């Protein structure tokens, strides 16, 4: 608060910002012109107000002149507002006593070609800021405790990496995985580009480490169903679906699977081949036990109990209910990954119709030694014969305004990997063609890998296919105009592999909503800033990692996982969250409980609560409120105020701006009349 209610002592600091501002307007004159402005005690200009010199000057003047408010005419507050606030605070002036006029983005960058106009605008903006500074109030902050624990949603390579890094810092981690085993997409891969090292060989040590780490609790076959903010923490409800096989008792003997009479579609192999109703998706699965799929099992329809009878350890029980558990964590990392776009959407490529058109993911399963064909390339549905000719079609559905406009990021490399692996296995026995448009090999040593594949004898055709038909013998023919030779080709293949467009995992939209995270094009989770805050989100304490943010390959997902772990760790290790109270506040004497504010709040920060006097009034959760001000706008009687941007403060600024403008116009008229 000012020392005396009506006495203002405002300091005005005008920044030249090198030539950004000073190159357009005379900053020294601007500072001088405010010398006698009502309420202003001190004015100056600097070359760089954000520099050490500039900072010292502000500190010095706050003390020397006993300032009640600081006005800085410089760049956008997005850049240095925090710094300037800290200087105020260090010098015993409340940090919210700062008003910034954006002379750069709002003026000199816009009116650089007209210095005269630029000067006038600058004057008005500073005048507005001074009037605003006169109305500013002290604002405090609140602190809430934060638990030293993190929930990681999704146990693919990104989530696993986050969990391990956090656990190593002594932070408790709850790792929730929707599928029955952790590992994610990487566990499906036989080899990884560009080094072609065995995927499971490098992944399984991490799976074991996660399983054995005392700070990590794995909740597999589980889903997050509710997330609620509890001041600094989150209360999360997780649904644990029954696997009907006890993790503790199962000894992995496989008797259940061998005797199970029911087959279902093998999800793990992306629909290629069958599996039993009770099964283990892959040998290195973690938890490393069997699992009963209720949807395909006939126990509930026909009363089959064979597996339970054959189990030597009585590990199978059909009477397990869905369990819901509640956990409290200080931060959340979403790492929910991706899926291939549904092949049936690509009817022009015979997706879902032509037997020998597969997705790249499916082809990857054929290459897997523990996949449906034990690593052999065989034609579906019988899987008896090898194809003589294979075409890989890149960007199937990607970079296509009719399907998925974005680039899938790793498809080019994924295709090259398949071609190279196939070449190593079959040599010239399989004639391989890659139909591509642009080949993107931007990662470390990716270009070298691309060259190696070209040298393997794979034929590259630049263009997209058309007129694709299934011949009587099941082979696929299509036309493609090859830009390289300038000729229209009619090609025929025994197998066509579509390198599919990439979507976020199903359920990403729902989860993002629960977490208060925005989504970007295609439904991927949105980062706070695409370059500078790639794993943070607009939701405090919620971080994202891996392909849920955008399609990413393994190195990028691991880097993300590590980054998110680091960001989440620095959030929870502080033990508390400091929330500045420049939020919405309700004046309970005015509130009529109409509930309009509750309806418009985009962050669910407002609720109607019953008070002691039984009136139902609006209440703001300061931890959820982001200070967007929507409530202030809709409140019919001005009972709810967004502190630091109250209607009065905004009005003061606007009026200051207008009156400065008017005064100048008038004096120009009078003096103009005399001189000309």
């Amino acid at each position, binding site marked *: 608060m000012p020392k005396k209610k009506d006495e203002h002592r405002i300091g005005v600091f005008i920044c030249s910002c090198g030539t950004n501002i000073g190159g357009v307007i005379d900053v020294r004159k601007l500072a001088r012109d405010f010398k006698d402005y009502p309420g202003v005690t001190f004015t100056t200009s600097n070359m760089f107000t954000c520099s050490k010199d500039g900072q010292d000057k502000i500190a010095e003047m706050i003390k020397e002149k006993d300032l009640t408010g600081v006005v800085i005419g410089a760049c956008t507050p997005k850049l240095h507002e925090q710094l300037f606030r800290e200087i105020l605070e260090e010098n015993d002036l409340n940090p919210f006593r700062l008003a910034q006029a954006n002379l750069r983005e709002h003026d000199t960058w816009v009116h650089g070609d007209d210095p005269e106009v630029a000067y006038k605008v600058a004057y008005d903006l500073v005048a507005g800021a001074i009037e605003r500074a006169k109305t500013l109030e002290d604002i405090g902050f609140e602190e809430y405790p934060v638990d030293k624990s993190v929930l990681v949603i999704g146990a693919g390579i990104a989530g696993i990496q986050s969990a391990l890094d956090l656990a190593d810092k002594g932070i408790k981690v709850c790792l929730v995985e929707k599928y029955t085993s952790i590992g994610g997409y990487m566990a499906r891969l036989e080899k990884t580009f560009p080094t072609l090292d065995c995927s499971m060989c490098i992944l399984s040590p991490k799976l074991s480490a996660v399983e054995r780490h005392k700070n990590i609790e794995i909740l597999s076959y589980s889903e997050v169903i509710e997330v609620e903010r509890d001041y600094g923490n989150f209360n999360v409800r997780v649904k644990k679906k029954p696997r009907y096989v006890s993790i503790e008792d199962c000894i992995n003997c496989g008797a259940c699977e061998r005797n199970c009479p029911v087959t279902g579609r093998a999800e793990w192999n992306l629909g290629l081949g069958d599996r039993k109703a009770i099964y283990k998706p892959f040998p290195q699965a973690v938890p490393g036990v069997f699992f009963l799929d209720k949807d395909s099992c006939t126990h509930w329809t026909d009363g089959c109990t064979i597996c339970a009878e054959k189990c030597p350890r009585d590990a199978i029980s059909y009477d397990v209910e869905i369990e819901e558990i509640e956990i409290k964590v200080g931060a959340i990392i979403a790492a929910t990954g991706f899926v291939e776009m549904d092949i049936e959407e690509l009817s022009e490529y015979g997706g879902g119709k032509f037997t020998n058109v597969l997705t790249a993911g499916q082809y990857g399963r054929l290459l897997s030694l523990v996949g449906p064909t034990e690593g052999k390339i065989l034609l579906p549905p019988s899987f008896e014969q090898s194809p003589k000719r294979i075409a890989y079609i890149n960007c199937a559905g990607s970079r296509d305004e009719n399907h998925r406009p974005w680039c899938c990021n790793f498809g080019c490399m994924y295709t090259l990997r398949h071609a190279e692996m196939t070449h190593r296995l079959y040599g010239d026995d399989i004639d391989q063609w890659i139909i591509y448009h642009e080949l993107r090999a931007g990662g470390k040593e990716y270009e070298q890998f*691309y*060259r190696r594949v070209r040298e393997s004898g794979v034929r590259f055709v630049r263009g997209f296919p058309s007129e694709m038909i299934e011949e009587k013998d099941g082979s696929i023919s299509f036309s493609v105009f090859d830009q*390289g*030779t300038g000729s*229209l*080709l*009619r090609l025929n293949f025994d197998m066509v592999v579509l390198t599919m467009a990439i979507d976020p995992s199903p359920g990403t939209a729902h989860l993002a909503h629960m977490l208060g995270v925005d989504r970007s094009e295609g439904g991927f989770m949105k980062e706070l800033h695409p370059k500078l805050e790639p794993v943070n989100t607009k939701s405090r304490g919620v971080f994202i990692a891996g392909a849920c943010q955008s399609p990413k390959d393994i190195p990028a997902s691991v880097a993300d996982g590590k980054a998110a772990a680091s960001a989440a760790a620095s959030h929870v290790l502080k033990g508390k969250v400091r929330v500045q109270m420049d939020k919405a506040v309700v004046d309970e004497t005015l509130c009529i409980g109409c509930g309009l504010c509750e309806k418009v709040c985009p962050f669910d920060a407002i609720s109607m609560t019953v008070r002691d006097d039984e009136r139902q009034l609006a209440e703001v959760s300061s931890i959820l409120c982001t200070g967007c001000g929507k409530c202030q706008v809709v409140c019919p009687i001005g009972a709810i105020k967004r502190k630091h941007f109250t209607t009065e403060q905004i009005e003061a600024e606007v009026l200051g701006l207008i009156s400065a403008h008017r005064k100048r116009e008038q004096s120009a008229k009078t003096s103009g009349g005399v001189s000309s």
Partner: protein
Amino acid sequence: MTETGEKKGLPDVFIEPINMSELDRGFRKEIQSMPNGEELSACFACSTCTSACPVANIWEIKPHQLIRMIILGMREKVLSSKEIWLCLTCFECQERCPQGVRVTDIFFDCKNLAAEENMIPDSIVALGKELLEKGQLYIVTADWEREDLDLEPDVPGLSTDAVKRVLGGTRTGRLVKGGK
């Protein structure tokens, strides 16, 4: 267009796509086994060779297209193209290739394969004939000019027999004989 022959049925389509069966998968390997052909596969279809070529604009099939055709196996089309014989051998394409493909050298290889199948311009065979018969491409006609400059009247050290002997037993000899 009028039908002149006995052919019945539908007319041919205007653009007959090149069918896969017409592609010779071995062509790439054939070229790669020839001198300086090894880097062929590194081509990534950037068409820098065509940009660098001073005469590509008058070629129906551009340099990069020839290279891509070799890779895809369009042997007949490449070897019968007139363009390979219109190469200036200025090596601009080869010098500029970002992947180290020896483009000009590969066109030399193509010309050799074409020559082997008698697809060679008469004027080039005529040069071969000249070499075989005279042992050199240029013959001193104005020896007085040489004498004016204190030079021996004949080209010193040049053996015409050597060329005749060597090339008589190679493709040049066969082509010249076959040409008669």
